[in-house]
């Protein structure tokens, strides 16, 4: 099969990407780790001092950390639940015989291609604005008080915006998976007198497991570092109500210039992401390369 010649060539061709990724991971990560033990302000360079674990102590005991930690979980979990639930429903609906399916598909897919800053601004100003937004007009029209989305339910508002962006992705992947389902299995189940619910639970859902895994994996990667949507809508506020870990570290390091504290936060974020990663990698290791 593979000759020694092609094997050494293969190794050679792996070098650029492996070394680049290794450098990309290791160099900045080691620097972050190093900074995290320093008292280091961006505005007064040259006055760095080794302070041990003090940055971590401050970061981990800061109420802002707990708030943003839970917000991160809520954001990732909420969007995953909405997009997976909605995605499965949409996939089943679009799998039915309908007129103009291609146009429906195109409309459903569209939000995925909208850049995060645009979608955040459009939702913030034109839909969710308490005075000029379309939702406010609608509320006035049916005679209830308009909701001030980003003041009253900031995190939920962001979850709604982000779910809108990621629902197409889930729906599209799941639709493709449903379309590869063996119809004869369903017909056989029909003959055996299975109802729609048991058909869904015993045939459709297991068939979708690989697709669901892929959706969870990819969405989690992107959702853990939601940033632009928060920056343009609430800037993390009011208070820390819509701050996630990514945004907290950004404010600490680049707005408050606390490089040491921000770095400690960065390391904490890496550790959290790794815990999630180990869990997810197990999941895909089983499911993806079958």
């Amino acid at each position, binding site marked *: 099969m593979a000759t020694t010649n092609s094997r050494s060539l293969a190794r050679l061709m792996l070098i650029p990407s492996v070394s680049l990724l290794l450098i990309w991971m290791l160099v900045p990560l080691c620097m972050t780790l190093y900074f995290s033990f320093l008292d280091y302000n961006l505005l007064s360079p040259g006055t760095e001092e080794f302070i041990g674990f003090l940055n971590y102590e401050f970061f981990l005991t800061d109420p802002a950390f707990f708030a943003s930690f839970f917000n991160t979980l809520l954001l990732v979990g909420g969007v995953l639940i909405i997009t997976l639930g909605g995605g499965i429903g949409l996939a089943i609906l679009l799998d039915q*015989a309908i007129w103009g399916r291609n146009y429906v598909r195109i409309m459903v897919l569209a939000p995925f291609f909208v850049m995060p800053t645009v979608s955040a601004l459009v939702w913030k100003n034109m839909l969710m604005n308490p005075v000029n937004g379309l939702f406010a007009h609608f509320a006035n029209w049916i005679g209830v008080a308009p909701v001030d989305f980003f003041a009253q339910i900031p995190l939920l508002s962001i979850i709604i915006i982000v779910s809108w962006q990621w629902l197409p992705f889930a729906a599209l992947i799941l639709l493709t998976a449903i379309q590869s389902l063996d119809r004869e299995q369903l017909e056989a189940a029909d003959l055996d007198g299975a109802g729609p619910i048991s058909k869904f639970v015993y045939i459709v859902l297991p068939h979708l497991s690989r697709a669901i895994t892929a959706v969870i994996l990819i969405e989690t990667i992107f959702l853990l570092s939601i940033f632009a949507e928060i920056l343009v809508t609430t800037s993390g506020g009011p208070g820390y109500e819509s701050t996630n870990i990514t945004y907290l*570290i950004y404010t600490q390091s680049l707005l408050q210039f606390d490089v040491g504290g921000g770095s400690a936060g960065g390391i904490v974020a890496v550790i959290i992401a790794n815990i999630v990663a180990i869990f997810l990698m197990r999941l895909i290791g089983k499911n993806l390369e079958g």
Partner: protein
Amino acid sequence: MALNNSNRSKLIYTFLAWTISGLIFFPILWTLLTSFKTEAEAISSSPSLFMFDWTLENYQDVLARSPYFSHFWNSIVISVGSSLLGLLIAIPAAWSMAFVQTKRTKNLLMWMLSTKMLPPVGVLIPIYLLFRDFGLLDTKLGLVIVMTLINLPIMVWMLYTYFREIPNEILEASRMDGANITEEIFHVLLPIALPGIASTLLLNVILAWNEAFWTLILTAANAAPLTAFIASYSSPEGLFYAKLSAASAMAIVPILILGWFSQKQLVRGLSFGAVK
């Protein structure tokens, strides 16, 4: 009777599907429509869907009063540049892993994917400081480098899944005919894999076009692509709905069209081959 019944359910499903997809698409439709309204109509308390005086003045305003084209150009350079550079690095790696499999190949692939799990904030400060020291802040080159690196694992994975589907026999046959490795790659492999390579390129252009974390942090006026430029409309003095809509429309429509044309290939790429 049976025909009637299935026709009725088709009607119901069609109605449901159009309603729901219409609601999902609505924010985009609304943005497009608002971009043709005057500012007064855009904030009117009784907004109208189609019956308004259509105007192009928002587009003219955005193009005339802001360096829109230079931001547009930045977006193109950064997304296309990083995708091409990424392909150049990713194709050899994907080739190696797909055709010269070893025990470590799977671990290597998993490791590459795991670099995607590294949260950007974990390396935010060093990258910012390194960029500052090397003069890469607010330059297109800097963003091309970052975008290439963050999308490299996805490119390698996508190409790998496409290459894996090429039967080894084809390559072996060409080897039997005396083709050397370069000929094998350029005359046999690449032509077969072209659709896969094209969709990898496309998906990465889309991802890079829309990437916002690094563009917001590493650019200011000069190298800011559209993602960062649009964010400047979030300031209170930028609150002009019609102009915001026009700028947004120009930023999303090209990529929307590109995405629609390639949706079938994108599914496979996006799910790393888990769904076909």
